[in-house]
């Protein structure tokens, strides 16, 4: 079956790319190319006229053919880079369907590539991560994994675990004498290292998660401090209601914005004050909840709150009409926009500073696998310390390896025996 889809985002653009993949894709596309130079044997890239059924050209496009398995999907594949006019795009798709193609389902090109062994699971995920990533950092991590960066790192951790298991198996399975004297000590060391690595993987994933899915930034402060004004100022559109009446903002209002390339989910909250109004109380409650889960909190005009944990920025607003009443990190005027550009820089720095830019894990699934792996290796550690028998230890380490296998390729019993045979003299 031949599948067809437009691979660039919908709407008017300079260039759009329509992909056709499948056994007869080249033949099919050739049917609407004037004097088609394409064949099933040699890959080719050429500027061609696309022609309607009546032979009239409707666009000039760069057409590139790939011969399977040397293509993205592993099948014969044609890419048509046409002008980005939706009418042209739909015409091409219609023509492809007319000659017996089918509209591709979302992600089907990547799935086909996976099915054809062009990508492993972690690579397939990287593709989706590149497509869905909200920022350039996320794209970079995705690209790195597409090249196998993740697989390499996980393979390294795995090879440590495999040689550990080999060591233990040798003692369980082959050495009929007592245990190697330093076995437990060296195992403990390896396990500790692996725990450390895996924890780091998870931490960096969580830290860099915001590069994919955005950092959450919450504005907090007493009523009338100008929270909503600041929100609007950062968002650059009037989203929140700005009034002189205290307690106007009761629900949390949020908006995705971009701060120096970093995706941010900005949240405006109810003012925080003692209130009898039930609805307002609920709003205040919500503010606190948001603040707890936030990556960063902007505290407005609150001289009493002076957290110094890097999670809070103390801002004095209305600097155009008032003098600060305490210590603040920055003075701004949300109304005039004074110093707001500087505030953006401070926000960016606080979010990014000291945090990993470099992550290996790019999907929740991968992170879950690493977490499960970590759980088992930790269990192994406590078994080791708790003087349990070796074969249970091996059981947990094997489980740990198993979860890493979910990210990369499978470890087999032979991998372990190979490790045994290459490092020990298996005498009897």
């Amino acid at each position, binding site marked *: 079956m031949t599948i067809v889809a437009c691979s660039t985002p919908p709407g008017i653009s300079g260039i759009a790319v329509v992909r056709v993949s499948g056994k007869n894709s080249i033949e099919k596309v050739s049917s609407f190319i004037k004097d088609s130079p394409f064949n099933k044997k040699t890959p080719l890239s050429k500027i061609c006229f696309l022609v309607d059924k009546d032979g009239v050209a409707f666009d000039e496009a760069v057409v590139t053919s790939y011969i399977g398995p040397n293509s993205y999907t592993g099948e014969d594949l044609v890419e048509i880079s046409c002008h980005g006019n939706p009418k042209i795009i739909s015409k091409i798709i219609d023509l492809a369907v007319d000659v017996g193609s089918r509209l591709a389902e979302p992600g089907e090109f990547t799935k086909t590539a996976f099915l054809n*062994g062009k990508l492993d699971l972690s690579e397939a995920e990287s593709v989706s991560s590149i497509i869905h990533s909200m920022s350039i950092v996320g794209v970079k991590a995705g690209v790195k994994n597409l090249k196998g960066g993740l697989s390499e790192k996980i393979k390294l951790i795995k090879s440590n675990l495999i040689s550990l298991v080999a060591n233990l198996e040798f003692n*369980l399975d082959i050495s009929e004498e007592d245990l190697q004297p330093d076995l437990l000590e060296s195992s403990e060391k390896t396990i500790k290292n692996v725990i450390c690595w895996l924890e780091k993987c998870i931490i960096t994933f969580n830290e860099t998660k915001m590069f994919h899915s955005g950092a959450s930034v919450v504005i907090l402060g007493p009523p009338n401090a100008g929270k909503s004004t600041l929100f609007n100022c950062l968002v650059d559109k009037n989203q929140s209601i700005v009034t002189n009446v205290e307690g106007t903002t009761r629900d949390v209002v949020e908006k995705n914005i971009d701060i120096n390339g970093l995706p941010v989910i900005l949240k405006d909250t109810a003012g925080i004050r003692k209130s009898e109004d039930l609805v307002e109380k609920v709003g205040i409650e919500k503010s606190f909840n948001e603040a707890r889960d936030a990556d960063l909190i902007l505290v407005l005009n609150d001289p009493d709150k002076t957290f110094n944990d890097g999670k809070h920025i103390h801002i004095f607003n209305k600097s155009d009409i008032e003098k600060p009443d305490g210590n603040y990190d920055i003075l701004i005027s949300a109304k005039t926009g004074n110093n707001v550009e500087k505030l953006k820089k401070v926000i960016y720095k606080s979010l990014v500073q000291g945090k990993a830019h470099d992550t290996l894990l790019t999907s929740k699934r991968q992170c879950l696998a690493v977490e499960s792996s970590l759980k088992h290796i930790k269990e192994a550690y406590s078994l080791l310390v*708790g003087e349990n028998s070796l*074969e249970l230890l091996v059981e947990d380490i094997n489980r740990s390896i198993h979860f890493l296998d979910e990210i990369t390729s499978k470890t087999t019993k032979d991998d*372990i025996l190979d490790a045994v045979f290459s490092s020990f*003299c298996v005498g*009897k």
Partner: protein
Amino acid sequence: MKRQDKKFDLVVVGGGHAGIEAALIAHKRGVKTLLISMDKNSVGRTSCNPAVGGLAKGQMVKEVDVLGGMMGAFADLSTLQSKTLNKSKGRSVWSPRSQIDKNLYEKIAQSYIKKVGLEVLEAEVVSLYIKNNSILGVFLRDKTKISCSSVVLTCGTFLNGLIHIGKEQIKAGRYGEKRSEGITENLNSLGLVSGRLKTGTPPRIKRSTVNWKKGEAGYGDKKPSPLSYRTERFSPKNEPCYSFRTNKKTHELILQNLSSSAMYSGKNMATGPRYCPSIEDKVYKFDQNPSHVLQLEPEWTMSEQIYVNGFSTSLEEKIQLKSLRTVKGLEKVEFIRPGYAIEYDFFYPSQLKNTLESKAISGLFMAGQINGTSGYEEASSQGVIAGINSSCFILNEEPLVLKRNDAYIGVLIDDLILKDTDEPYRMFTSRAEYRLQLRSSNADQRLLEKSKKYRLLDNKTLKGLSKKIENTKKIVKHLENNNVKPQIINTRLEELNERPINEPTRISNILKRPKVSISDFKIDVVQLENSLTTHMKEEIFFEAETIIKYSGYINRQKEEIDKIKVYEEMIIPEQFDYNNIKSLSNESREKFINIKPQTIGQAQRINGIRPSDISILLVYLKRPFHVKQKK
């Protein structure tokens, strides 16, 4: 009666450990069976080391025993020393092993065969009589035809066997025994693919030429346990083995003379095993080891012939002797015969179904070294299965297939048919992912039902084992359902340096702590049946304790087994054409075509097959891309 007139249902070719198990079990199941051996006197011979059992192998012997095999029983009757290995480690890897009297072993085997009335013929089979891919009989060297509808081939190292000692080559099946010719060529002509493997055996030395005082004596267990469930009284001899050590000089001599060795892997010869390497391989590959252990084992009671375990070699005889004499205590040693390597034909076991029947020729079964394995226990395991399944073939019963979580035997056969080995296959406990469940102590619990179904055991043994299993369950239930009070157990817990309890607590919960054992609780309140022997009672308590201690892990494994069960039950049609799947890599396609997995589960376990290959297969088999779990 003329030989030509003889008609059998089953002919077993070869009288080694695979052959006698296959023939005996088929005979027991009422199939008219003939065992053909090239030398009647060598039936049941243990041609290499004088021991049965050991790591992973002890477990297999017990499994064979529950399936009606004889290896454990024969060994128990000829034990020189019995010892459970790995006692310092976890109980799932405890493995019974017996040094045996080789002469006695084969005598016992031969007289048992006579006693049960299994017919044995001394002859050489040279080809099979096959029509339309079915067995009609076998032909002997003297052109006699023996009719039968099923054959079990267990030819050991005899098929085109070639012995190497240094540069010398001798055509033989074993030292001093004629090799067998014809079968390989015959099967090749029918399309079965064979290869070559090699294995080695160490020199046999004269007891009187060893200075025994220089060795370290090793004895068996004070309370030895038998290999067979059928052995009632077991008080074997306790003859010692002695360990000696090689040294720098030994190693130097060997290294200088490597070129004279046929076993040395550098040479272009059939593949040998990595796990039981020749002394030349050990010295060459593991040059960081300053010394290797040599175990001197008697071959029979107070025998003059001594087996030098750890010194498998095919160096020139002169060099073998010279280097062995560098070992302290062996300065004046003399040979009864030198060590040697032997090369022989085997058939790639991926050509077999998981019943050990040939995929191509119905009624043809193979077992033992002919399938590329090594070891008596591996041979005997396959022998029993081939014997049972050939009798099922004849009796038109459903064949017996053991799963990987049923038995080491299941692991063995599954591995054999799915990965074409290029070295002789030996069992290790680490090959079994469900090792915790495959203990030597629970072979009966795992396999008794099968044994009943296929009528493999005598009534008495069956009853005894059923009773044992019932009583074990009873105790486990007691441990899981009853509490122990703090005042009863806390003193003991404190003695063990364990956290005391504050309130009555499930016995099983406390028993799971590593240092606590079942004897710390008063459970004599549980009424065990009186007729049980003391030995059985001990085994019951031990097993109950093990079941509790491992329960967390085993339950997890059971969940896993349930999860993958769907795949084990997904049949790939025999005619499935992998050439239709263009999207498979050539490598994977070739593997699928060669191995022809019977189920998706098997396909997954083929080496080098990637998850995406399986996804593709599922798509083509019109199965959901991701299989959802039932329930």
